[in-house]
């Protein structure tokens, strides 16, 4: 094991770690914000609301993220119309393209998760709220969404870990994240073991931190579902 090469590359890995965290945070934030209204639409009993959202989640959950990223990054840039439009300063940036592709992908999964949780709202609570004359918006805001978001928590923690792993694909479109740093080190020193094991250790550490954070969140917000001690 060539530790001197690893030591020499550590600054690159540190920059890569920061890039990975930035990508993850932005993608999750945008994805979650968009998933709330979309999840409500998806769980709606009105076909004209749920069908378009169904189509979106079907396409984005049925195709690989790598293909989605290639389409956003290389595919869109092919068209003169796109290059001449106001979107171009955004789409010409690799970081923005990666965040866009990741956000669209995580939003699709989160939407389905949230829709499932909304549908699992105990029927009695909704009836009682309606009996009180609550308008639809208040019903959503005070009864359905708080409990649905909490019900999602275990599945969402899985989704966050999956997204962390997915960010490793960003290295394919020139971004220098953790995996990108490993590939750089490999192409410079020809030491695949050292390069990729270092990256793997960083990812493992991040995963443990996230799992612990979610366990804490579940202890707080899902306390009502824990078994009696």
């Amino acid at each position, binding site marked *: 094991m060539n530790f001197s090469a690893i030591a020499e590359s550590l600054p690159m890995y540190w920059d890569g770690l920061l890039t990975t965290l930035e990508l993850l945070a932005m993608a999750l934030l945008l994805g979650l914000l968009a998933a709330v209204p979309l999840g409500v639409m998806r769980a709606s009993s009105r076909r004209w609301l749920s069908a378009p959202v169904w189509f979106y989640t079907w396409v984005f959950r049925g195709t690989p993220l790598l293909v989605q990223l290639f389409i956003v990054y290389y595919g869109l*840039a092919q068209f003169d119309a796109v290059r001449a439009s106001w979107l171009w300063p955004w789409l*010409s940036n*690799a970081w923005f393209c990666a965040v866009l592709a990741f956000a669209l992908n995580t939003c699709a999964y989160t939407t389905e998760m949230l829709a499932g949780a909304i549908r699992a709202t105990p029927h009695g609570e909704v009836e009682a709220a309606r009996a009180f004359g609550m308008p639809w918006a208040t019903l959503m805001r005070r009864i359905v969404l708080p409990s649905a978001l909490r019900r999602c928590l275990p599945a969402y923690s899985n989704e966050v870990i999956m997204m962390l792993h997915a960010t490793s694909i960003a290295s394919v479109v*020139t971004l220098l994240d953790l995996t990108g740093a490993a*590939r*750089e080190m*490999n192409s410079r020193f020809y030491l695949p073991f050292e390069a990729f094991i270092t990256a793997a250790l960083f990812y493992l550490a991040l995963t443990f931190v996230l799992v612990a954070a979610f366990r804490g969140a579940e202890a707080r917000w899902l306390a009502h579902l824990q078994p009696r001690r």
Partner: protein
Amino acid sequence: MKKLLSVLSFVLSLAAVLPLVAHAADPMKIRVGVEGAYPPFSSVGADGKIVGFDIDIANALCAQMKAQCTLVQQDFDAMIPALQAKKIDAVVASMSATPERLKVVDFSDKYYNTPNRLIAKAGVTIDGTPASFKGKKIGVQRGTINDRFATAKFAGAAIQRYTKQDEVFLDLASGRIDATLVDAVAGDVGFLKLPAGKGFAFTGPVYDDPAYFGTGVGVALRKGDTALREQLNAAIKAIRANGVYKTLQAKYFDFDVYGK
């Protein structure tokens, strides 16, 4: 009993010699690493076959050495690791013999040598001074001599690394990067002469510093594989002498690509 013994010993001695004889007639098997994303040196056609100058040279050398060659497609930055891992025995992928690479692999004599240049939008001049690089985005293929040179010398520019040169050209055409440092011939035939390359041109000086760009493109081999190296050098001399090289070269270039 005596007769049986003498017959047996005759048969056994034959059996001992035959494998050697058969072995001498067995063609040498060489796995050659090729890229397939670097026209006109190597590219993949619609029928899935890899073609190009590198491929023709590899086949010609193998024919000259009377060896059985299998072409193995790899990404460029995976070539040297694959060589070290014994997945392939030789690399014919426009790989230059640089001092840095010579530390880890051996090279045969060169089979061509071309300089490297910057390509940018026509009218944009990047004349090679540090001031001209400030704020520019330069795209290079990861692990190449251009990658090393740009990283070391183009201070002030943002270097973006891609897995394939094709991807660099895609982003150059769409305007994501301002320029690319690439082999002059690959840039000319693989980009400038195509419709996508309209409106782009060479700019800046000719780069051929041997410390970074090496002494020419050769066949990369595992360190210590002197037997194969001698055979390849002999084969290269032979095809240069008997006109095969000239014929192959004429298919792609109208100038002498062997260089100085």
